[in-house]
Structures are given as C-alpha cells and as structure tokens.
C-alpha cells in the first residue's frame, strides 16, 4: 500500500495550442532535478486507457526521484481536441515532436529524451528521427506496423465472434479501409489514412534514432528486435537491449507499475546521467 498525497506540488495540467487543436499536457516537475527530462509517448487506443493509471503513477514516482516528466494526449485521443478519425501515424509523430518542444520550454534539463510504450515507443523513434532527442527509453516497441494493425482488427473479430452476433472478418474490414471507409474497432474509428501509413511505414528507421537507446523487450519480441539492435549498434549508437520476463501488462487495466521494466529504466537513466 502506498498512499501519498503530498508529493506532487510541482504537478501541472494544461492545454497547449490554439482553440480546437488543444493538446492536453501534464507536467511533473522534479523537486530536486537530476537534469533529465522524459516525454512520455502513450500507447494506442485501449492500451492507452489500460496503462494510464500505471504510467501516471510511475511518472509521479519518477518526479520524486529527480526526473521531470511531460505526459500528453495525442490530438484526437483522451482529453485533447480532435476526433479519433483524424489520428494517423504522421499525426502521432507530429504530436510527439510538439510535446518535445513543450518539454524543452517548460522543463528545461541537460538531457531530454522520450519514453514510449508499444506503439508509443515506435512513434517516439520516428519523432526522434524527425527532431533529435538525447535518448530513447523504449518498452516493447511494435516491431511490425502492418502486423500490429492486423492484430487490432483480429481482436475485434474475435470479440465479435465470442460476444455478439455481428459477423465481420479481418478481410472485410481491410476491404473497407482500402475503399476509403473508416472501420470501428473497439469503439474507435480507425481511418483509411492510418491504415495506409501502418501498411507502408517501417517500424524502425535504418539509422539509429538517438545516441543512447534503452530497448526493453519481452521474450516474444526478442527475435524481431535483435537485427535492428545489431544494426543500430553497428552504426555507433549505444543500444542497451534487455529481455524482461514480465506479463503483457498493457492488456489489462490496473494501477501497479511494472516493476522490472521500471527498475531497469531508472537504473539506465541514472547511468547515462552520470
């Protein structure tokens, strides 16, 4: 049990941007700054909801340990303006870059980098490629965007089959997207634009996105990640790759911080800060 009501005097919530394109932002200013600031890139759709209490809790803990944190809701999600039909990979990357600018203005530190989980980790890689960051802390980045998108559709098909009479196949949903029609997956409107970009974009750029990278993966992703890690290391990036044996916590709502992931990350952040 941990009940602490007094550790967030430096927490601030605000909207950034013009009317109708306001981004919802949460700032956690470290009480005794270590000089390291993290921009949290959230995972996608339902995973953003299920992991929200966990990552919010962890960001408060990080601020208590000297790391400033900026969390944000990409446009079209959560409390930010816009509709989900407007969300594309490009918009997610653009919002991550905007968040980095905000963090530099609001939480200036010696080192500023991204933390990302799942699709948020993949987005942070592309954001760092567009606007350099000092480091990346990646938790289980999506290794294949087309496969990830297809899994989203498949999960809906399975739920339809188990719970409801509505019969749709993955192929039918893809046909709708190909024809320029949005599809409804778990109550989220996925646009043809998002589908096209998921289909066309590589999850990982050839060049390393940052000089310092922490990549935490579950055993299931080890094989897909290894060649990318090797390539980035070969190009001079310091990539610390670790396999963490922990459950896929993003699949379930809960409020506990995934300890093994969190511990490995804090140790790494402390190490690169020295």
């Amino acid at each position, binding site marked *: 049990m941990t009940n602490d009501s007094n*550790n967030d005097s430096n927490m601030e919530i605000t909207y950034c941007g013009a009317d109708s394109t306001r981004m919802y932002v949460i700032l956690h200013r470290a009480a005794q700054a270590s000089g390291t600031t993290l921009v949290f890139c959230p995972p996608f759709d339902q995973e953003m909801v299920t992991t929200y209490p966990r990552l919010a809790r962890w960001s408060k803990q990080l601020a208590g340990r000297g790391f400033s944190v900026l969390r944000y809701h990409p446009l079209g999600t959560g409390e930010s303006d816009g509709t989900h039909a407007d969300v594309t990979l490009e918009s997610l990357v653009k919002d991550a870059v905007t968040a980095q600018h905000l963090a530099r203005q609001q939480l200036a530190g010696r080192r500023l980098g991204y933390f990302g989980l799942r699709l948020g980790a993949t987005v942070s890689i592309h954001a760092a490629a567009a606007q350099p960051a000092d480091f990346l802390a990646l938790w289980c980045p999506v290794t294949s965007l087309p496969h990830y998108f297809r899994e989203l559709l498949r999960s809906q098909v399975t739920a339809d089959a188990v719970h409801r009479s509505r019969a749709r196949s993955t192929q039918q949903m893809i046909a709708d997207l190909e024809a320029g029609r949005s599809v409804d997956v778990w*109550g*989220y409107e996925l646009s043809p634009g998002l589908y096209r970009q998921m289909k066309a974009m590589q999850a990982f750029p050839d060049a390393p996105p940052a000089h310092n990278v922490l990549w935490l993966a579950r055993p299931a992703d080890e094989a897909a990640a290894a060649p990318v890690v090797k390539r980035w290391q070969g190009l001079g990036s310091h990539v610390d790759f670790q396999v963490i044996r922990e459950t896929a916590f993003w699949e379930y709502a809960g409020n506990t911080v995934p300890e093994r992931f969190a511990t490995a990350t804090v140790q790494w952040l402390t190490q690169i800060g020295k």
Partner: protein
Amino acid sequence: MATQICSFPSNQWRLSACVHLPDGRPQQRIGVVMITEIAKFARQPLCRQLGDAFAASGFYVLRYDKRGTSDSPGNCDLTFDDRVADLCAATRFLRAEYNLDKVLFWGTCMGAAAAVHASARLSGPFRPDGLILWAPLANPDDASLPEFNYRRVTFSAYLRKGLTGSLWNRLQAFVSDRGYRANLLGSVVAMGRSSFRNSGRLERVRSQISRVGPLLAQYEGPSLLIYGDTDPFWIGFTKRINAGDRLGLSKMKSPPKIALAADADHMFHSVQQTSEVIRLSVSWATAFRDGQDVCGEREEIRTIFASPARGEGRDHKEDSPLPLGEGDRAAVGEGIAATAIRYRNSERRY
C-alpha cells in the same frame, strides 16, 4: 464546447478535473457529475463526447480523476469508501462553484456503484436529483480490484461470464487466438492470487457492492439504468440481485427506467453502441429537466424481473436473455419514451 481544467479538494487530497460548460446561459442550472472506473477519459472517446453532448444540451458537466490516481496528484490505493468520498466532494464542488439548482450523477460499473452509495450518503441540497447508471456493479461476485487487473476473482463469476458466448465460438477462439488463451490464463492466475493474497480489501469492496441493490431501492429520485443485453452484469442483476423483484424496484417512489442496448456486452465496444448510450443519457436528462415523467412503469419492471432467483424453484435452461426482436429493438431505440426492455415471451424459456 468550452472545457475548463480545474481541481478541488477531497479530504487531504486534491483531485484533478475538467468541466464542460454549456453554451449561453441555461434557464435551469443543472449539473452532471460523471464517475468512471479508470481515468476520467476512460472508455474514450465516449466520456468526452458525452460531456460535450450534455453541455450542448445545457448541462454543466464535471469529470474527475479519483484521489491519487491518473492525473490527480499523489498515489493512492483506492478503497471503495475513497471513491464515494471523492464523488461527494465532487458534487459539493460542482454545485457550489457553478451555483447549480440540481445535480445528476452519471456513473458506470464500479463508478455507478459508488454513485448509488453517494446518493445515500449525501443529504440536503447536495443529494443528487437523479441517477443515470450504466451497467452498475451490484453483484459482489463481480467485484474485483486493480491489483487483480479488475479480473473476475471467483470461479462462479468467471463461469457465468463464460456462458455469454457459445461454447463452440469460445473453443475456436481458444484454438486460434493467442490473446484469448493469454486472457484465460490471466483469469486463472487472478483467481489464484485472490485466494492466496487477499488482504481483506476484496471482502470490504464486496460487502459494499452487496449493498448497492438495497440502496438503489431506497433512492427516492428518478433513475435510468442502461445495460447491454449480453452484459454478464445484466444477467447477474436479473437472475441474482433482483430476481422476482426481491429489491422491490417496482414499488419504489420513482421506479427506474430501464434501457437495454441490443447486442452489447459490458464494454459497449462499438461506435454505434456508445452513441446509443450518449443519446439515452442526454435525452433522459433533458426530459428530467423539462419536467417530463422519466420514471419506469411498475408493471413492466415486475415483468422484467419476474423470474425467480437461482435455487428458488425452477431450473434455468440458459443464462442469457433472449435476443431482442426487431420490434423490441425499436422500443429500445425509443429509449425513454417507454421502459425500453421487452423480454420476449419470457415465460417460454423454462
């Protein structure tokens, strides 16, 4: 629609919130306090859309993060009493800050259960004038905690949930879907952990949930209950909690209006279904504001809950309600125009 970020106190905690403001100056100043089970934007984009829809119809709407969770400062392992206390604090804040004449509660799942408790705890001008409850958690067997990832922690609850899909479909999903298998394993682990690592918190929350039905029956204001027709919570409510109308909902001063959404389970995972929740909620609240009769019909409530509880007479051959016919769906579509549910020939089932 204007949305403001704000915060308010609840005991020694500060709670982060946002308020949707109505356009113009409504003649009646009525507020809606929304309470969900995870973050204030949970079930996105529903909660934000619902807040906007209420505001567009002239209501003030407050959504908040409970103490020490999500965007509220601090870290707290919430108890059920904390949830109720936070809702009471939110009600006092909204009513006083915006000088409101009336307040409605809109809650879902555990939030709806907290809303029922808070309605009994609040008194005088702070008592809510109406309740909109979406899939309220009323069966203690369905209660869980975040440390168990909100999974069902009793075998009977898991089994009951498992009966909502056909055995063949579940078998297919088990064979073909890795995620489904992982989910099944997770449920077994949660059941095991709840048996070995129970600190008493689960018993306490179960005890509070068991009081939701009786407290709802004592509530004197109007209420709207919304369920999906394949939601295990609805099945539990009809077969266990209020079988044979043992709670006496049909005898309440203001019997609840009940709306069932066709083909919807607990999560309402489609844009169409969530739009229906928004439409039902806002039209009921608007009718309440305009002084229309928003109560359910006693005879229909008696019919809905006519079947006896388990072990009180007849065997149940199936656990889920009959699917609604086209005519019945039209009635659901009418929402508040009539008590929405029509169980087709329910006597035929046994």
